[in-house]
């Protein structure tokens, strides 16, 4: 049994380890180890295409995670303890957003936005000189839609485990509803909100499939990596991959610590 577990862990970590190992190779071959050097890291960090894609990814991940966290938390607060038709409609929307394959969300967003832009631009452009197109905005909108749903589920889950007696006590002691929220509810759901933010950030940062459709002329880091792989594997991609994995790992450990503090059940 223990041997079996060991084998599965080896299966899970061997490919990751190989990428990390090969990224330190000094040679030109992506699939063998020739000496040790950090030169591919230097090469990757000095590649303007990589840095531009990285900047786009970070920008989109940060802004979409901020919006998703704020809007998702607001919705979760309103939905807790709510009944009736509005609640059912929102539950359905959250479910659809989580269930529908990312690829379908991607194409749906692509054709809907392109259609809307084609209708709006002939009016908008002469008036304002602006022209709507796919890009950072559509990436933020599409990523945020999915991650907002995750935030709703996380924060609502936490809200439902709160002790109502605390809120009643606060009200009885004369606190205003906002005062109760600020001093009683908010501190208790804060870890879930922060965990939601970090998960939203990593999802957006790692997402390829939705971005592939709605990025327009922009290139995110996963799109850059994917198109590079198409042209052939290089040690530079190994170095980028290792850095991305290390970064996600750090963010995730943060999220895990937050969730632990909120005493919620750990989630994958």
């Amino acid at each position, binding site marked *: 049994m223990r041997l079996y577990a060991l084998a599965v862990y080896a299966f899970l970590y061997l490919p990751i380890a*190989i990428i990390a190992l090969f990224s330190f190779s000094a040679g030109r071959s992506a699939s063998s180890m020739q000496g040790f050097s950090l030169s591919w890291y230097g090469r990757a960090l000095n590649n303007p295409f990589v840095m531009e894609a990285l900047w786009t990814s970070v920008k989109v991940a940060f802004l979409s995670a901020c919006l998703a966290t704020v809007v998702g938390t607001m919705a979760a607060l309103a939905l807790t303890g709510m009944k009736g038709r509005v609640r059912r409609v929102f539950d359905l929307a959250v479910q659809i957003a989580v269930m529908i394959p990312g690829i379908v969300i991607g*194409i749906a967003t692509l054709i809907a936005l392109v259609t809307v832009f084609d209708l709006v631009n002939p009016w908008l452009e002469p008036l304002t000189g602006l022209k709507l197109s796919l890009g950072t905005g559509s990436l933020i909108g599409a990523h945020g839609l999915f991650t907002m749903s995750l935030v709703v589920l996380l924060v609502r889950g936490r809200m439902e485990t709160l002790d109502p007696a605390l809120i009643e006590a606060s009200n009885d002691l004369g606190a205003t509803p906002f005062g109760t929220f600020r001093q009683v509810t908010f501190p208790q759901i804060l870890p879930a909100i922060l965990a939601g933010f970090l998960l939203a950030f990593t999802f957006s940062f790692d997402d390829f499939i939705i971005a592939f459709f709605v990025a327009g002329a922009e290139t995110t880091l*996963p799109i850059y990596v994917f198109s590079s792989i198409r042209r052939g594997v290089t040690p530079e991609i190994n170095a980028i991959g290792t850095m991305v994995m290390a970064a996600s790992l750090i963010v995730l450990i943060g999220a895990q610590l937050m969730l632990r503090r909120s005493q919620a059940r750990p989630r994958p």
Partner: protein
Amino acid sequence: MAMTRSRARALLLTPAGLWYAAMLLLPLAVVLIFSFGERSQIGGYAPGFTLEQYANLPARFAAFRNTLTLAPLGTLASLLIAYPLAYYLAVKVTPKWKTMLLVLVIVPFWTSILIRSYAWIFLLGGKGIPAFLAMFGLEDVRLLNTPFAVLVGIVYGYLPLMVFPIYVALEKLDKRLLEAAADLGTPPWRAFLQITLPLSMPGVLTGSMLVFILLMGEFLIPSILGGGKVFFVGNALVDLFLQSRNWPFGSAVAVGLVLVMLVTVGLYTRAAKRFGAGRDDAALM
């Protein structure tokens, strides 16, 4: 400050509601409308009402066939590999190690699936496992760009998602039931079949559903490890929307994918319920 509760609620819900309407419901409605439309001369969409696109679906039969074979197969393989690990983690491991081992299962899942799949190009490519097999006299084994490679990528990518719900179900299992069974002289394998397995069914169900749903829309793994020879509906969609720009037909394929997914998931849930799986705890995401 005399804002009523329901007005506060409406204010809090408005941004999320608008977001869902504009970026989820509108796009899905557009896909549905386009799927009944015609293709315009320059690609894209021309208004119309026709069932032609749906009638044309058999043209992409191979993509649906591949998806509907490899997605269930991948789900089953993940399940068979995940169950013993989840059992080990839930039953055999001491609490001290449990958290760390669990985190170790989850960590790969939250790192980029793109980079993790790409790692298998090395392992399955000429200098990887085939070179290793050649040392034992098995020459010319081709692994990369085969259905097997896609299957390996699938299991590798989605294993953590399968382990976790099964672990949660097994963790809740009352150990006294097994002790009672042992006291009554039940051999361990029968206790497993009659107690442990049925009680872990909700976890098995949740895990399989999560993996299966994600697999139905898979694009990256077949495109990286299948080398254009093993393609899923996801690959057909990328081709139809980004290369050949046949939006109405692509929309019909997308609607077809969602329908096939809903029907399969529905049938599976019903079958699993009949097996006495009880309530499914979907509280995982």
